[in-house]
């Protein structure tokens, strides 16, 4: 799609002629989008078909790797019987609660530490030390603190999410160009106005990137956590089915987690677009 470059032997000069992207930009863009969409759909479809074929032809052992049709049928049956939804609901509730708490706390502390050097000096070494602690290792601590209910699961998600959002927010505030602050001061902005009109708009896009990464990690963590200390949820479903050698049910859980992760991440991305219309988009019209 790009321009065609040609080196003329006689002169040694590099000649650049316009390619389709330059000469027919709309048509080229449409073709490009169509190709991207086709690839996005075709690759997973081909992989699933290949998986189905492999299971049908016994190239792989369908007792260990059930065919997609088996997983789909089992998932449908469990969904219609109502067996699947309590696990989906339990995981969703834990993720939503933990994510909300972690994002809020991370954002607030990130803003504070980014904006106030003394707070940063006081807390950064401690936070850095806590950041590197494997969060799953904190589960027994949370079990002791909150008992056997929802508390440990929500706390684990919240703590995990917190660090991603805290770091990205603090870094974003620190990266706000001094010129922006100067401009605010020139216009006589007070602390609240400086925050509302300079720091927040400048840091929100980067904070939302951290929140999006945290959305995926929240799902990862809750699945691991539910496998250890929960009597419901998708993580419990996956690992319980694995322990019982019910691989079809296990794969239903895995597919549900994948769908949940994608939907959750996309929701955060969508929220980011709505909240920060000024920020550059990370998906959409690609460069040709």
């Amino acid at each position, binding site marked *: 799609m790009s321009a*065609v470059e*040609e*080196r003329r*032997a006689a002169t040694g000069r590099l000649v650049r002629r316009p390619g389709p992207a330059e000469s027919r930009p709309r048509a080229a863009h449409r073709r490009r989008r169509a190709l991207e969409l086709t690839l996005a759909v075709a*690759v997973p479809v081909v*992989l699933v078909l*290949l998986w189905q074929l*492999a299971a049908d032809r*016994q*190239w*792989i*052992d*369908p*007792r*260990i*790797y059930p065919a997609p049709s088996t997983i789909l049928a089992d998932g449908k049956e469990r969904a219609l019987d109502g067996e699947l939804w309590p696990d989906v609901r339990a995981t969703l509730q834990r993720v939503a609660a933990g994510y909300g708490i972690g994002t809020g706390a991370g954002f607030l502390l990130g803003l504070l530490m980014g904006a106030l050097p003394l707070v940063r000096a006081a807390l950064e070494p401690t936070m850095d030390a806590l950041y590197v602690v494997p969060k799953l290792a904190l589960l*027994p601590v949370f*079990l*002791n603190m909150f*008992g*056997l209910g929802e508390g440990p699961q929500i706390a684990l998600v919240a703590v995990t999410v917190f660090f991603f959002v805290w770091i990205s927010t603090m870094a974003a505030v620190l990266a706000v160009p001094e010129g922006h602050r100067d401009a605010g001061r020139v216009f006589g902005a007070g602390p609240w106005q400086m925050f509302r009109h300079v720091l927040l708009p400048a840091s929100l896009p980067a904070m939302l990137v951290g929140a999006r990464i945290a959305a995926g990690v929240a799902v990862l963590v809750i699945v691991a956590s539910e496998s*250890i*200390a929960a*009597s419901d949820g998708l993580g419990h479903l996956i690992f*319980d089915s*694995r*322990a*019982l*050698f*019910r691989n079809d049910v296990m794969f239903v859980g895995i597919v549900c987690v994948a769908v949940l992760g994608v939907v959750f991440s996309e929701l955060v991305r969508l929220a980011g677009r709505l909240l920060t219309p000024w920020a550059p988009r990370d998906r959409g019209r690609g460069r040709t």
Partner: protein
Amino acid sequence: MPVPRPAPRHRPAALALAVCLLLLAACTSQKPEPLTRKPRTIEPVAGCGARSWTDPARLGENRAPARCAKGAPAPRRLKRPRHLTLATSTLTAEYVAPLQLAIKKGEFAKEGLDVELKVLPTPDALPLLAKGKLDALWAAPEAAVINGIHGGFGIRWVAGNFSPAPSSRSGLWIRLRDGERPDTVRPAGRSVGTLIGKGSVISYPLEKVLAEHGAAMETMDFQQLGSSDVLTALTSGGVEAAWLLDPVWRQVRGDKRYAFLGGQPVGEPLGGALFGPNLLSADVDAGVALLRAYIRTINTWFAGDYKRDRGFVAELAALLGQDAKTLAAVPSLRMDWEIRKGTAGRLQRAYRDAGVTDGAILPERRLVDRRLYAEAVGHRP
């Protein structure tokens, strides 16, 4: 100068396809071999008389486990040495001690067997066992095994492991509420902490104990917890009842706030050796030799109350990586290589009631094979 050719457009797709095919090749299955076996000659074995076999239908704590004389059955070295890989989910549990000791004392080597132990959870070991990549699994006919056999895996339970001593209090403990007495407690509706899930063989005694106290599995709220968390949850009030294993139950023994409701049936082993196609049909000689060495180890070192010998306890503790005092604090297990009639059915009914297995209850012959240990002790059916 010619214009350089652009890279082929289909190269990424071809690469992706090649990766997929490689992955598929890596996952390629082997169908389990049918478990066919030529008729085998069973000869009497010196040192293994009438006491070396008990009627499988006999249950109860009055049944003495089968025993041969010390050092019997004598080794019969295989003509060709074999390397066998055995999986077990733990190397520190007391019921694995006969295996560990047999390796240490060279009992397997005397049979011409080079036995390697691998630590592997049962669900992970099952496909390997069925495909012949593992020779045996030292575990139990858990729900995962039943589901695997339902799916067509050629696996059989070929030897028992132990039953608890009558004085053991490993089992279901309950925290008594105000005014409750141990003999009148009704556990229905209470939360139960357990290290093991509903797919464990413990489901069977748990269901039995609950039924004796007017409760059922579905009336309980189960919390699966880590080994160190079960006792903490019970004592802190996080759960109202818990299945406590050796030696954890000692922490609440004698405390009037807790009551022991029951444990694993005495005289009925619920676990042991599971063989796959390798030892069930392809190389039965090696399978019999493995069990012969195991049985000889029991007869030589674990025939009775083996913990009376403090030196032996110290040796076991070192072998299992346990504290000798902790090991000595709980009664000796009744090591038992036999499998009781009906245990497989009772386990399956418990799994079915717990909703962790699918399909009809398998007949015992689809799950249990007593012929190998019968041959090892020279018992003719």
